[in-house]
């Protein structure tokens, strides 16, 4: 099966065409915003930190910034830094250039001599880049080039029995055609790690699955939190969920039933196709940002209670099996699959509906969040301690 996509010089294919203004520290966010506001076709990627970070924190930050620039939906990147931050904007520029020959430029506010000079230079560079971008045409490419990010949020009693398993059918379809699906949200995997490990391609991947879940559980224990004991929550139980594994199984059904080929760190680009697990946090925006850096061109988000979430680089298709939510939050919801819960359609048929929506959106159809220009992004910052209350 084919979709229409933009070819990138590194051999990847984007389904959107964007120039990103990538801020490498919170101190550069406002200047980056000024540049982006002046040039149509650019998107501003504000940084939640980028400086005053140590250890794993700065490692995750730099890896994710590189991944965002390498995302296939990105035509080119203007890095906007302050100059003295821990992310090291000039070094980032070199590292990105080494991994892809896509257009890229870098400016720092300190070297340019203030915001106005940096903005002037940034606008000129971005303007030229957008002009070049506008000449790229979509071409027919195999759907196996598509990397789908999956995520859920605002779940309710319908999520695990309609939207998630239906998305799972869509995931299976895409993987059978050679594509890639990312399943994340490590907190949601707790309770199903042994089931997932049995579905791993080999022992190494199986151990990786058990490790990310165990490590997270240990972190929670250090904070005095018993995740397993706290789930399902009283609200979950009221909705009909009886055990931790029942809740988690409803969540992981988004990924479908394929063999798990790889486990990757937050923001890392998978080497394998097929089903891949990314170690991401439970906060939706951070989780989806990690998958964006991992190279996903499109995201499908399941929800029971509704969500407005979007992303600056990827279209986010929001689906629900809750009819009331679809009607009440029509402004935000893309697809209603509540027929799965009336018996009008099977879960498989709803999976087909989702797959067709995926194809349409890959080929250019706007999602609700895109039409509003929503660009939710937040790079995960790990647990960093700099001061105590």
């Amino acid at each position, binding site marked *: 099966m084919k979709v229409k996509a933009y070819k990138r010089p590194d051999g990847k294919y984007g389904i959107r065409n964007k120039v990103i203004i990538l801020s490498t520290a919170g101190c550069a966010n406002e200047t980056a915003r000024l540049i982006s506001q002046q040039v149509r076709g650019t998107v501003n990627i504000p940084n939640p930190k980028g400086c005053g970070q140590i250890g794993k924190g700065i490692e995750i930050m730099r890896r994710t910034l590189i991944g965002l620039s390498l995302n296939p939906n990105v035509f080119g990147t203007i890095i906007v830094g302050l100059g003295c931050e821990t992310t090291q904007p000039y070094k980032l520029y070199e590292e990105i250039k080494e991994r892809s020959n896509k257009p890229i430029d870098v400016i720092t506010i300190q070297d340019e001599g203030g915001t106005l000079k940096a903005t002037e230079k940034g606008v000129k560079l971005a303007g030229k880049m957008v002009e070049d971008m506008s000449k790229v045409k979509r071409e027919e490419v195999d759907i196996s080039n598509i990397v789908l990010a999956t995520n859920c949020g605002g779940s309710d009693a319908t999520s695990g029995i309609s939207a998630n398993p239906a998305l799972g059918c869509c995931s299976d379809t895409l993987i059978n055609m050679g594509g890639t699906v990312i399943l994340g949200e490590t907190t949601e995997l707790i309770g*199903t790690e042994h089931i997932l490990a049995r579905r791993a391609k080999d022992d190494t991947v199986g151990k990786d699955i058990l490790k990310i879940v165990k490590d997270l559980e240990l972190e929670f224990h250090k904070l005095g939190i018993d995740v397993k004991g706290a789930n399902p929550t009283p609200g979950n139980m009221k909705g009909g969920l009886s055990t931790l594994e029942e809740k988690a199984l409803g969540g992981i059904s988004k990924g479908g039933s394929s063999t798990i080929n790889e486990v990757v760190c937050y923001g890392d680009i998978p080497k394998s196709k097929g089903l891949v697990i990314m170690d991401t946090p439970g906060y939706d925006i951070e989780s989806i940002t990690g998958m964006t850096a991992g190279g996903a061109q499109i995201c499908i988000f399941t929800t029971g209670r509704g969500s407005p979430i979007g992303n600056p680089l990827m279209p986010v298709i929001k689906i629900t099996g809750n009819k009331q939510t679809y009607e009440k939050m029509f402004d935000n919801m893309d697809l209603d699959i509540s027929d799965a819960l009336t*018996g009008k359609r099977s879960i498989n048929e709803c999976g087909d509906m989702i797959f067709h929506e995926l194809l349409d959106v890959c080929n250019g159809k706007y999602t609700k969040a895109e039409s509003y220009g929503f660009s939710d992004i937040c790079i995960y910052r790990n647990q960093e301690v700099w001061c105590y209350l």
Partner: protein
Amino acid sequence: MADLKQAILMNEKDNVAIVLAQIRNGERGQVVFNKEIVVEVTALEDIETYHKIAIKPIQDGDIVYKYGEIIGKAVCSIGVGQHVHIDNIESVMVGNESQSV
């Protein structure tokens, strides 16, 4: 018979189904898998929307399946048509940390 309440089966291996609308004690319901009626059951108690109903007899200690996977084990015997929830099943994961792959 179109007005029979429906319960959805997530996987053919499952011994529980999810009722799609509240079902009353004594009411009959259809268990549906892939739009086809697999079996009919009579509810032995009131069961809330999206809660589970036993569609096969479950003995004390038996594994409870949903999605074709283990969601817990029975802590007493559960008859066909009974509500399956926190009072009669428990997690096999929680408090059992030594489980291997």
